[in-house]
């Protein structure tokens, strides 16, 4: 099955890639600055990525209304990598080499990011990556505006362990079988162990992509949860598999008060396709919720609804990450006085910009940003209601201190260090 899906996607990419010759924009005058948008508009990932393209178009539109950057107008170049990982690399090359974009905003899955990395290194351009991911990476050409595991997964586990979260003693780590859940679960298992959780109180389980028959898995969770200790599920289930999972939870009558599920990949966008009444109280951990009550957020959502002409459009965490990333890029360009990627990369570190939740996010030397962490409970109206938040912002640990092999590594892209994996014990760059 996996073979044929990949096979399908590849051909889908070939078909659509030919059709979407949006490079045609390129014929415009020379005094505009081009910004590449590399998000899937077709295929399996279109569900999450299409809306990120819309956010970028809105941001560029807004900036142009303010007079552009350094006196030049911005222009979006949209390409469709069609949820096809190799095509991501091809499209990235097309954007940088042919369309001469100054910066690219794009990618969702870790596979797609890994596939474009060599291109960005070779052609020396900038990528802003807006999604929470498994960490264990820091590249000179990439700015990670999503959360590292310590900015999402670990605070969520801490919350559940606390009295407010129900003093959870037993853990099910349920994930889709690919790199993000496997790495995150490895970090979480090590973290739980360090907190004194016994091995028999942790159950790790993986399911394939797009899994839809959750009966057996949910029964297993139910059985694991009836051992006289408070149990919670930490879900790194990806994309489409979430809806049938939550439906099965609801049908088997597992309420959030019995076994709460905290998810790292379920946001307002995913909940929009679900009847959330049976799910009230299940949790999600993010760095932004649409429901957060700050004047900045309210004003932003009004603008967003006006731009999309749809008063019901949701706004979620990766979208906020693009807003932060774009504003940081504008500030860095103004600071550097140039659009040259090399100069902008150096100017990025230390740039601070307001996030939508009323705080400041700063680009750190490890190319990750500082973020507040919010734990929210699903409401009957599909929104997430904050029940807990970190007092301030959290600095990303791109190399997890809980994993063997990455414990001693740090990333610092300031000169003269300029290294993404410096071993502090040996003092050598390169792991």
């Amino acid at each position, binding site marked *: 099955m996996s073979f044929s899906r990949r096979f399908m996607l590849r051909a889908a990419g070939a078909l659509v890639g030919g059709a979407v010759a949006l490079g045609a924009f390129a014929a415009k005058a020379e005094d505009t600055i081009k910004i590449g948008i590399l998000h899937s508009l077709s295929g399996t990932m279109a569900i999450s990525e299409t809306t990120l393209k819309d956010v970028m178009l809105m941001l560029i539109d807004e900036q142009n209304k303010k007079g552009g950057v350094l006196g030049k107008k911005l222009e979006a170049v949209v390409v469709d990598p069609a949820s096809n990982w190799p095509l991501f690399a091809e499209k990235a090359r097309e954007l940088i080499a042919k369309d001469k974009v100054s910066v690219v905003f794009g990618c969702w899955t870790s596979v797609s990011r890994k596939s474009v990395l060599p291109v960005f290194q070779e052609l020396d351009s900038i990528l802003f990556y807006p999604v929470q991911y498994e960490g264990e990476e820091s590249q000179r050409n990439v700015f990670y505006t999503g959360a590292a595991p310590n900015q999402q997964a670990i605070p969520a586990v801490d919350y559940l362990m606390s009295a407010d979260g129900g003093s959870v003693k037993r853990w099910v780590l349920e994930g889709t079988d690919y790199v993000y859940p496997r790495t995150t679960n490895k970090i979480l298992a090590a973290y739980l162990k360090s907190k004194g959780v016994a091995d028999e109180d942790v159950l790790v*389980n*993986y399911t*394939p992509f797009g899994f839809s028959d959750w009966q*057996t898995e949910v029964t297993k969770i139910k059985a694991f949860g009836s051992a006289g200790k408070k149990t919670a599920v930490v879900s790194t289930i990806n994309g489409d598999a979430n809806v049938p999972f939550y439906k*099965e939870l609801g*049908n088997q009558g597992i309420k959030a008060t019995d076994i*709460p599920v905290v998810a790292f990949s379920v946001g307002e*966008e995913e909940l929009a396709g679900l009847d959330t009444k049976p799910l009230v109280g299940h949790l999600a951990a993010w760095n932004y919720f649409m429901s957060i009550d700050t004047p900045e957020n309210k004003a932003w959502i009004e603008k967003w609804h006006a731009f999309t002409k749809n008063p019901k459009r949701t706004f979620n965490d990766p979208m906020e990450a693009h807003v932060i990333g774009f504003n940081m890029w504008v500030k860095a360009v103004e600071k550097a006085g140039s659009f040259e990627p090399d100069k902008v990369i150096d100017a990025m570190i230390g740039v601070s910009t307001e996030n939508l939740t009323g705080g400041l996010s700063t680009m750190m030397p490890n190319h990750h940003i500082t973020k507040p962490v919010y734990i929210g409970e699903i*409401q*009957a109206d599909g929104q997430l209601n904050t029940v807990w938040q970190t007092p301030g912002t959290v600095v990303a640990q791109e190399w997890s201190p809980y994993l063997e092999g990455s414990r001693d590594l740090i990333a610092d892209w300031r000169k003269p260090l300029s290294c993404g994996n410096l071993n502090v014990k040996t003092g050598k760059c390169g792991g």
Partner: protein
Amino acid sequence: MTLARLFAALFLFCCLAAASSAARADPLDDTLGLFLDDKFPQTEKAIGQLAISGAPTGTQILEALADNRLFIDKASKTIVFKNAAGDIFSAKTGEKAANIDEGALKKVRVNNGLRSAIDAAIGSMTLASPDPAKRVAGADAVFKSHDPKDLPAVDAALAKEKDQHAAQALRQARAAILVLSADAPEADRLAAVGLLKERGDQDAQGLLDELSQKAGEGPLKAAALAGLASIKSRLALWDIVQNLWYGLSASSVLLLAAIGLAITFGVMGVINMAHGEMVMLGAYSTFIVQSLLPPAFAQWSLAVAIPLAFVIAGCMGILIERLVIRYLYGRPLETLLATWGVSLVLQQLVRTIFGANNRQVVAPTFMSGSIEVGGLSITTGRLWIIVLAIAVFTALQLVLRATSFGLRMRAVTQNRRMAAAMGISTGRIDMLAFGLGSGIAGIAGVALSQIDNVSPNLGQGYIIDSFMVVVLGGVGNLWGTLLGALTLGVANKLLEPFVGAVLGKIILLVFIILFIQKRPRGLFALKGRAVET
């Protein structure tokens, strides 16, 4: 002037006195005052006070709080709640509140801890309800929270309980409280262990497990361990039944998705890669029906959606057959590529019309939740899908066996050229058979909209499984498809608990490859001369 001032002062004094005495006289005001803070610890305190206050509006307030219908009116600093229809009532009096500005209302927040507290409070408050079903629900809620402070209420309710069922629930709730309270007499606790062992479900198992971990060595711990062992062995038996049931349910989904393919693939030998998209169109028809039907008919949405999905997907099938497949008969590779192209076009078309996001399809109430039969929990949605699969299978058999269209179709399947020689218009039969197969895929889509995402990618997840079923079952035989679906579904669900979902799927694929090596024509092979050509 002085007199007027004196009167004013006197009036004010009287008002204040009245207000303060009212506050003293009614503890409900203090309780409701706690809600005004909208802080979790205060709210929890208020819930506890409401549970024992005996206030007539107590249950209503707690139910509203659990459903997020309890509000702080910021203008008058009072607590109000809405009913399901959105009318606003005063929490203090339970009477309709007039002149409330909706904009000044702020929800009282709850979290999971508070929700548990609310459930427990409502449970203990309904123990004395006149309705026996409510008393059972109340006792179950107390069982779950097993809070020692509910013990007097349970004892009082038990003393007057006449209904056998409710009495049993109350005894179990009492046992759940006693078994974990260290200061209860040991004899009572041992009896409680016995009651829990009798109950024998996962909740009882959880309580006994907790007891066995907490209790010191002695008869209590021994009893707990013995009870635990007996429950575990009983549940292990039910586990097997449960897995078989899950297998049956998985089979019904496979059968629904594959049976349409069995017709197109079986009759015409067309490898239709767009079959999954017919399923997807069926699911979207359900969405369309639900968004167009007035809410009063929501229960009937699926009954309307099934024929509509059949027609939409069937027409689309006929259209594809007439426009594309007709020209490609006898060229399997080209058909495969062309139908695959069609599937991509359909996906992107739906994505353009409905957006890339999942669409929400609501389950009618009779299709949500589950029923417990012994240790077996049957989700009603899945049960109805099995019923639908059986109905579709029977109807299709009837069409094939008892109608002239079915007779012609079987003739074309067995020997196309002979059938044509007998005067059957094979082109027309092809078209109708393709429409029938696609239409049934549409019906499958209605069922799948209940358990899976309604998204443009819906069909992709089922196309490969459908082909596996048809190939395993044998081309051109519906009984083969049925057996193929049952084999794959049950084997998958029996493997899953032991090897996990990922490895289970791999093992099944390997099994099918080996099986096809041994029997290339599947379980039920068509026989006859025509087959060989």
